[in-house]
């Protein structure tokens, strides 16, 4: 997979690049700010851009805006946004219409090499990746007459993994159960929560996300 990395801290940028190379990817460009990122993405048309949220000049949310720009201009390029902190609001904003080829992860996740490589593969292949912390904030939100109370503990676990953007196969592997068993759980969850079932994982993420933050 061909990847562009945008991150203003050289140390972290080199680290991420090395990690990606070790996972067998080709880092075709490195950028230190949003303009640089856009130039390199346009020039290289990579499979994936790994983008830091805070970059010069304003150090606020350049990365987020660049991510949206890339998605609008070059739909074939997956964007994995990394952030020093995660906010469900940003996830909603980023994944608002279409979660395909989009990811939003806490920067710390890069140290969990396996999970990070997994998210890179998923987003690069047109899937989604949502940080477990975003999911846990959303699922842990206090509600009156919480519909999540209807779910069994196992179903809650499956719901969380779905929200992270994982495929049924990945969920089955993670929970060490058969894919068939996961499918049954997913059907039960959708029916209990009154959601329309969807086979495409990135649509599924969106449905779950909207449900959780409604």
């Amino acid at each position: 997979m061909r990847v562009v990395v945008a991150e203003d801290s050289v140390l972290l940028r080199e680290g991420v690049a090395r990690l990606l190379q070790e996972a067998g990817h080709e880092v075709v460009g490195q950028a230190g700010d949003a303009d640089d990122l856009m130039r390199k993405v346009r020039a290289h048309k990579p499979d994936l851009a790994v983008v830091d949220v805070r970059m010069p000049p304003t150090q606020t949310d350049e990365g987020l805006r660049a991510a949206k720009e890339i998605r609008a201009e070059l739909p074939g390029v997956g964007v994995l946004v990394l952030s020093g902190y995660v906010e469900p609001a940003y996830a909603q904003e980023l994944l608002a219409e279409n979660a395909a080829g989009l990811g939003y992860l806490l920067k710390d996740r890069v140290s969990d090499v396996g999970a990070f490589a997994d998210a890179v593969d998923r987003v690069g292949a047109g899937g989604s990746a949502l940080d477990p912390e975003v999911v846990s904030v959303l699922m842990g939100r206090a509600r009156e007459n919480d519909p999540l109370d209807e779910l069994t503990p196992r179903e809650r676990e499956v719901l969380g993994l779905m929200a992270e953007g994982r495929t049924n196969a990945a969920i089955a592997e993670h929970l060490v159960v058969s894919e068939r068993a996961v499918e049954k759980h997913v059907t039960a969850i959708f029916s209990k929560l009154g959601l329309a079932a969807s086979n495409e994982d990135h649509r599924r993420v969106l449905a779950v996300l909207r449900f959780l933050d409604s």
Partner: protein
Amino acid sequence: MTLGARTPLRRALGGLALAGVLLGVATFVMVASSKVPTAPLLEAILTLLIGWSFIGTGLFAWDRRPSNLVGPLMVAVGFAWMLGEFKSSDIPMAAAIGFATGSLSVSFLIHLLLVFPSGRARGRLDRFYIAYAYVAGGLVAGLPIVFYNPATDPDCTNCVTSNPLLIHANLDLVHGIYTTLSAVSIPVLATLIVHLVRRTRAADAEERRSQEPVWWAGGATILLFTASLLTNLGPEEGTYDDVVWYVANFVIATVPFAFLFGLLRTRLSEADLVAEENVRLDAELQARLDELRDSRARIVEAGYVARRKLERDLHDGAQQRLVALALDLRLVREKLDDSPKEAGQMLDEASAELAQATEELRELARGIHPAILSDRGLEAAVESLARRAPLPVEIDTSLDGRLPEPVEAAAYFVVSEALTNVGRHAGADRAEIGIRRDNGRLVVEVRDDGSGGADPAGSGLRGLADRIAALDGRLRIDDPAGGGTIIRADIPLGSGNGLR
């Protein structure tokens, strides 16, 4: 309750009230337990009645009409009265003080009668009477104590046996001074009564209305005092003296109420109103300045406290973990060749430790200033708080666009602190947050359905109140009748809060 300062005037009046209560109790105990008066308990009760009614009504009048001398004079009469009653004590020093100050209350009373209800003397004649009252009642009547030796006084059958203020014993001189004083004062007081009656006659209906309640009481008092002064000229110590004395006491006790009634009936003149208003504004301004100074000091202090806490958190948290990690990595380096399996396990532990450290740093940064607030504004930041709140939160916001940064930050911390409190103490099932603009102000309201009882003096809320006061806003905490707590901040969005 509003988190604001009491005015300095109120504080001072509170202090005077306390002093009055203490002096009253002391006088009562002293007189009631004394062997000097023929009816100690009756005299003690009368003293307390008169002293406290003057002080109480005087303080009330003082509070209502802070620029009018009537209130302070009434308070002075009350204090002087109780002090004068010390003369009935059988403790020599107290009795001496009582003898020296015994007539001072009448001086104040005469001053009061003359300047009522405006608080100002009208003309030279008034000023003459006032001066006479203080010279005669304070100085001439008090002076003889230094010549008086009770042991040599044949009239003094069961009084104290010594006088600590005695300089030179001369009983004849004492009697001489008192006789002269009475002889001069009786005609002066008589002309004073005539003067006052004339003035009342000349007054217009409005003035008379406010003075009516005073004259019968005040006039009667002077009359009775004149009568009691006559006893100094007449035969020594008889039932006549006692009867006059007690009747005078009862009448005097009603005087302060008459004064208060009259004063409150007085319609204030234009000039008085302005003066009243000025005094009130001065007091308010002073209170605000005091409050501002206190709050500024607390904000500075809170800044230090926050920095110390930050330093501690960094030092005890992330820094310790990183130091431990550095050590672990050294150990791993040594284990690497001999027992690679153990080394691998240690590296896993180190990674977990590192993840913990980053997590702590992230939370710390979030507490200092949430990035979403500067990135996306107040509404998004409050929604983020609500998502993480330990109870269901309903949000009703109607802001469009961003607000000045300091206002956003203050409002954010109000919601944050309120939700923390709700989660911690209130035992609530749900909370509601309302944020809106109202007439150039931002109004932030957090209400819950818990048991109430938020402590406005708690450091969290106190700090918030200071923060909001610094923006010229107000923080209120209410426990409404239906239960729960409402924390409400309103902050002006004026130009002063925009540019920083």
